């Protein structure tokens, strides 16, 4: 404001930098590149003990006896706890509370926690755990649908009382969701071609690099302070406190640095074990899994068997689809019911199909528990329906992209659930874009200097110089829901404060959002800069002193907690403007008449006139708002017909994969994996690319490498290590060109569309399609290993 109170104009370029739409850099970047960022496994406390969990060595057994005496006698050991030492017999679980914190008389999967030890050195704790003698009486194992639903099948969870129990055909089925719309049998009679397929999708591990870790510190009030890497602080709290027998206010949780998540931190891991040991010993207890234990310490992506039937007319129109998707949920429910809902409701893919007959279900078995992983039920279905699309196109003699384009959904299409798609759905356009890209050059391993074997299948193993190498190209597109569905109250909470510090306005954002690497903290600061025109934004550590932010999953945090931050900013802005009107309203009529904004640390009119400095308006006052925010509500799916407006928003991505296959050795080199995705609005373009490329490579992993192998006889995990569970390295990963569309969704904050998961869907089937194109093989399972390509499986 000029000295005489007369308005000036906001000079050009004085808008607050670092707002939405810019590739603002991560606020935690410097800490992360200097090694100073404190991850959960880095925490240290004076007088701290180390916790170790003893896990079952068999998949299914009665526990006859547990002898802890030798472990307790070991020097350096402070506590050994079994089920008998628990303060309550409360179980935990995300949706169904079926999971004991320590096994009670029976173990249901390989690696189930049986006892915990606290000692003064991690190796002492490990050795003491090994001295606990557990006598098991082994039981037959339930490993698949046949053994789960056989007349004499052992029931994995007896006397179920959960809300799905009364609606399932067998107690070893966690949840079953049919979706029936139109008349699939009738429509099948119109089909000129009919294509069926049976597909298998392997068990994938999230393989976040930061192991499950946390530090529990006992407090004087009998409670506990827990520093933890998780995806949802408040969901943890809701489960932890009852097991400990404590009121929620006595369990205070703070997010520590999270080394990736991808769904694997939605369920509890070591949280309660650390708290139990801390409360028992009166000392801080840290637990850090090693990689071996991590493979047992979190749920995995559901393996699935999928049967599909599609029909189409000669001119390429889909007539109908029938499918049956059987997901293996393993020994505990985790998020299986919601995964079933997703698999069923998204099983038709991004296509117009009026007549469908769908069934999806999840089993209880003695295999490792499965739950959330990026893509959440939509991934398995996409792998199968995209294989079907290629089969149909081939049957019809059509180009696979053209065939998909004929059937691609668009705004207004009705989903199998009866829900209309009420925002942009550029399915055909995404495919068109990846197809229009120039192809990577043929024989890209050849240069003037000769053959670079690093560019060939087999790489530095030097297994070919191009002999037997065949190129293939494949396409796929997918549909993923954004946010929690089926009537879930999917809200978030944000607290935003603005005050003057050292003469400058500064903003503080406090949420309980778990920053797991996705960059939510970057985006929150950008939103504040855009909404409040304050350049200096501090992000408070996430903890349970503020209301729930919901989960960092389902591609939802930018939408929902971003939405909550935006909403809180708008409420703060109103309060600031009210304050301004009271203090300065008489100085200029625009205070009463104009649309007012906060920009560049000033109150300005929408015409750009500066009315006041924000610092002058605020003076000594701090404006603070904490408020919950919700997206539009959803409905449950009807249990019988699957009808219902179950989803908040859809997200679409398409891929084109170019692969080269050494057909003699069965080795695959993915040469390029191009992606096009609609993100509505890229709040931070650099982060959006990171999400798309990262999601794409997780899809590549399940296409050609990643699978947790479970012995079908014993239900034991055979490859719990990074030596035997193969993850894509930088050598396995191709160039990933990305085409980002920004077609606003009018229902969402800034028009944004959740980004994180969609690229994980279509990546896998695109790679599979390319390998089929190169080899001519049917390939009905993923991952594809060399033996599947050489006929030696």
């Amino acid at each position, binding site marked *: 404001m000029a000295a005489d109170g007369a308005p000036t104009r906001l000079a050009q370029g004085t808008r607050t930098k*670092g707002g939405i739409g810019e590739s603002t850099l991560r606020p935690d970047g*410097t800490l*992360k590149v200097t090694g*100073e960022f404190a991850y959960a496994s880095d925490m240290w406390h004076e007088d701290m003990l180390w916790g170790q969990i003893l896990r079952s060595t068999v998949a299914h057994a009665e526990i006859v006896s547990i002898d802890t005496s030798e472990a307790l006698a070991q020097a350096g050991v402070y506590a050994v706890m079994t089920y008998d030492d628990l303060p309550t017999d409360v179980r935990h679980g995300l949706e169904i509370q079926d999971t004991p914190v320590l096994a009670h008389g029976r173990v249901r999967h390989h690696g189930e926690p049986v006892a915990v030890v606290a000692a003064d050195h991690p190796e002492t704790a490990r050795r003491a755990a090994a001295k606990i003698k557990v006598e098991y009486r082994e039981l037959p194992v339930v490993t698949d649908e046949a053994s789960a639903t056989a007349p004499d099948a052992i029931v994995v969870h007896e006397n179920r009382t959960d809300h799905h129990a009364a609606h399932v055909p067998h107690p070893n089925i966690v949840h079953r969701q049919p979706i029936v719309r139109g008349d699939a049998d009738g429509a099948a009679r119109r089909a000129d071609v009919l294509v069926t397929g049976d597909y298998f999708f392997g068990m994938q591990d999230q393989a976040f690099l930061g192991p499950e870790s946390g530090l529990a510190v006992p407090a004087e009030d009998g409670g506990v302070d827990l520093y933890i890497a998780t995806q949802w602080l408040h969901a943890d709290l809701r489960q932890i406190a009852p097991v400990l027998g404590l009121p929620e206010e006595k369990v205070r949780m703070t997010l520590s640095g999270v*080394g990736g998540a991808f769904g694997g931190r939605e369920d509890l891991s070591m949280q309660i074990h650390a708290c139990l040991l801390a409360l028992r010993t009166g000392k801080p207890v840290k637990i850090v899994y090693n990689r071996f234990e991590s493979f047992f310490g979190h749920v995995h992506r559901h393996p699935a068997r999928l049967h599909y039937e599609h029909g189409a007319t000669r001119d390429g129109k889909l007539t109908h689809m029938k499918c049956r998707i059987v997901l293996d949920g393993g020994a505990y429910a985790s998020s299986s019911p919601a995964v079933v809902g997703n698999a069923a409701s998204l099983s038709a893919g991004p296509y117009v199909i009026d007549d469908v007959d769908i069934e999806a279900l999840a089993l209880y078995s003695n295999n490792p528990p499965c739950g959330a992983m990026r893509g959440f039920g939509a991934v398995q279905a996409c792998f199968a329906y995209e294989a079907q699309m290629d089969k149909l196109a081939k049957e019809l003699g059509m180009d696979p992209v053209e065939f998909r384009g004929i059937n691609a959904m668009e705004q207004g299409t009705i989903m199998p659930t009866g829900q209309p798609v009420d925002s942009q759905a550029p399915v055909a356009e995404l495919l068109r874009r990846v197809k229009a890209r120039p192809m990577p050059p043929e024989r890209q391993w050849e240069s003037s200097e000769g053959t670079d074997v690093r560019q060939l299948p087999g790489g530095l193993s030097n297994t070919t110089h191009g002999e037997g190498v065949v190129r293939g190209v494949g396409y796929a597109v997918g549909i993923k829901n954004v946010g929690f569905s089926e009537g879930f109250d999917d809200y978030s909470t944000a607290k935003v404060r603005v005050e003057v510090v050292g003469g400058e306005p500064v903003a503080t954002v406090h949420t309980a959002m778990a920053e797991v690497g996705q960059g939510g903290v*970057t985006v929150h600061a950008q939103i504040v800069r855009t909404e409040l025109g304050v350049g200096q934004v501090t992000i408070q550590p996430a903890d349970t002193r503020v209301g729930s932010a919901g989960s960092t999953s389902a591609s939802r945090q930018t939408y929902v907690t971003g939405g909550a931050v935006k909403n809180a900013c708008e409420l703060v802005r109103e309060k600031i403007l009210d304050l301004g009107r009271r203090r300065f309203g008489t100085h200029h009529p625009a205070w009463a008449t104009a649309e007012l904004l906060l920009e560049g640390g000033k109150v300005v009119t929408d015409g750009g006139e500066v009315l006041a400095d924000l610092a002058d308006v605020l003076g000594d006052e701090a404006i603070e708002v904490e408020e919950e925010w919700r997206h539009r509500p959803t409905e449950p799916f009807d249990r019988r017909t699957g009808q219902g407006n179950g989803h908040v928003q859809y997200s679409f991505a398409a891929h084109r994969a170019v692969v080269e296959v050494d057909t003699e050795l069965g080795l695959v080199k993915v040469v390029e994996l191009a992606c096009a995705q609609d993100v509505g609005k890229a709040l931070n373009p650099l982060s959006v690319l*990171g999400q798309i490329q990262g999601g794409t*490579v997780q899809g590549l992993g399940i296409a050609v490498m990643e699978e947790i192998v479970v012995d079908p006889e014993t239900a034991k995990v055979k490859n719990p290590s990074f030596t035997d569970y193969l993850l894509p390295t*930088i050598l396995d990963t191709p160039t990933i060109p990305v085409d980002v569309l920004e077609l606003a969704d009018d229902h969402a904050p800034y028009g944004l569309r959740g980004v994180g998961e969609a690229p994980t869907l279509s990546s896998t089937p695109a790679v599979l399609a390319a390998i089929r194109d190169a080899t001519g093989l049917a390939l009905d399972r993923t991952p594809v290993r060399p033996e599947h390509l050489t006929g030696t499986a």
Partner: protein
Amino acid sequence: MRVNFTVNGRPQEADDVWEGESLLYVLRERLGLPGSKNACEQGECGSCTVRLDGVPVCACLVAAGQVQGREVVTVEGLADFARERAEGRATGARETGGGGTPLDRAGRWQATGHDSQAGEGTGLSPVQQAFIEAGAVQCGFCTPGLLVAADEMLERAPNPSDADIREALSGNLCRCTGYEKILDAVRLAAARRSEGV
């Protein structure tokens, strides 16, 4: 046992070290240097990569006793190490005919935003700065190991081709980024260095 060695140029003494402890454990739990990460503790992921007498190693596979009298550089000391190298105190770089990426192309994705906490003026090494700017850091758990490995590669091969970069970093797993931004970052660091920016 007692182990004496040099970490990031400073003499260090670790007491009561159990014979089975790794260099990684001693760094993280005894010397207060948790920057080297513990993602697999079986030599597969590279997140604990440090320099041992100049050679990149997985600290989880080095027994603590093996480092007696030797020199270790961790991510915490990378900026100082790079500065000293640039000042000529440590060289050994050689040109390779790799055909690297020119700066204008390496920077084509350049971030336009700014953030006071994102590394400006904090004395980072070129490769650290490039990782932040290129978006090569998400969860960041692989970052320390990748930085040490990338810095060592650029010391040996200042003008690497993409295939060179992939080969050099193939022992470092990253689960978040899909590696594209890591390639961007290394290209950027190399291009800035070769063009003297």
